[in-house]
């Protein structure tokens, strides 16, 4: 087999997140509207590799994905050995905003999956005017736990093979084996206790359902897309969230589970491409109406 190269480029950026120096790994491909991708708990940016190699996306979008600190190739901050990793809502948003600023992403669309699909609700609330829209995959505006909290204190949570087995049923039965097992490998790879640390955000520090109705979807469209086989964020969780956000759209994806972009990239593309197309069209109309009155700096509001 001859060598074949993908169009993905990787890099490292040194930046401060909530006042702490970090070295963050990111990948990108394509040109156009920035599309910032957020991986699931305990995983890393490789989940987005298929999107970055799809010219139907990269012809129009600059697709950027990064590894949260502690994940993938983004190391924890110095002194990690004396800390217990625990992702908070504030810390998660701070990391996203830091990467958004550092890479100069002008009014990005943010797409996140699972805990990434949760945090986009908060991004739309807190930074909506500085975004072109958010897409929450397997996303909702409040925790909806499906296993007992005491499990988190068991030693198994420090083991990658356990984390993978815990989530394995969230991959739809239709998904090709090669993609299923690569998706699960990301969980095998996770640093010990990192998946558990992400669960702090996902299970206890991401209740937005009281505020989510305040999102102005005329400025920041909200699209929630959930696989029918997802029992972590169920289609019902997603529909209920969309019902609370005026103007939000809920799409239930047949034959997909909790990891649509990595478990079955082709099937996912059939759902995502029309959404991206609509966001582009909405964005062009908005640009015609206002000549860039809102610049995409998150801190500027």
């Amino acid at each position, binding site marked *: 087999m001859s060598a074949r190269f993908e169009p993905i480029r990787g890099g490292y950026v040194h930046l401060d997140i909530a006042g702490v120096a970090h070295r963050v790994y990111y990948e990108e491909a394509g040109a156009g509207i920035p599309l910032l991708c957020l991986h699931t708990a305990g995983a890393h940016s490789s989940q987005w590799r298929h999107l970055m190699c799809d010219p139907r996306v990269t012809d129009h979008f600059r697709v950027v994905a990064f590894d949260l600190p502690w994940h993938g190739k983004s190391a924890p901050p110095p002194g990690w050995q004396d800390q217990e990793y625990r992702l908070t809502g504030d810390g998660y948003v701070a990391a996203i905003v830091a990467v958004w600023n550092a890479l100069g992403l002008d009014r990005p669309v943010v797409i996140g999956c699972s805990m990434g699909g949760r945090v986009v609700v908060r991004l739309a609330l807190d930074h909506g005017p500085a975004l072109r829209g958010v897409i929450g995959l397997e996303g909702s505006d409040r925790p909806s736990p*499906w*296993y007992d909290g005491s*499990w988190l204190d*068991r030693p*198994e949570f420090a083991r990658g*093979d*356990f984390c*993978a*087995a*815990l989530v*394995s*049923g*969230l991959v*739809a*039965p*239709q998904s090709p084996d090669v993609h299923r097992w690569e998706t699960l490998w990301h969980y095998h790879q996770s640093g010990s206790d990192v998946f558990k640390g992400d669960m702090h955000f996902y299970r206890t520090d991401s209740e937005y359902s009281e505020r989510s109705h305040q999102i102005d979807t005329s400025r920041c469209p909200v699209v929630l897309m959930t696989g*029918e*086989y997802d*029992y972590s964020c*169920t*289609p019902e969780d997603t529909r209920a969230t969309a019902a609370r956000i005026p103007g939000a759209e809920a799409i239930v994806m047949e034959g997909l589970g909790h990891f649509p972009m990595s478990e079955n990239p082709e099937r996912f593309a059939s759902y995502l491409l029309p959404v991206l197309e609509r966001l582009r069209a909405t964005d062009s109309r908005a640009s015609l109406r206002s000549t860039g009155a809102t610049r995409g700096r998150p801190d500027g509001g």
Partner: protein
Amino acid sequence: MEVEAIFAALPARANEDPALVRAGRHMHGEFLIEVGERAFHLPVTAGRVGAVVTGPLRLRSWSFAIRGAESVWREFWSALPAPGFQDIFAMSRYGHARIEGDLGPLLTHLRYVKGLLALTGRIAREGGR
């Protein structure tokens, strides 16, 4: 395929699968699968399933039990289970099945136990060999 035949075929099929045996190599324990009223007791030693005992069971030890109606297990065993039936945790979340007892051994050996259950589905679909 009769439910009894599926579980009777399980030990030989499981023990000849090196990847499955390796996934369960640290497991020493016993658990129950209940299909409607019928109980199947599965003893595991170092990733190998011993003879499955079919109920009724009297005072037999086990650590955890996974219980569901036969129609639920038939859906789980089908080639393309409906959403909510593709995994024991999906079946638990939607109330189709109950996972009870000491869940510690289940979590410790989760990949293996899920692998065994996936194998029961393959046996059911193949109708034996």
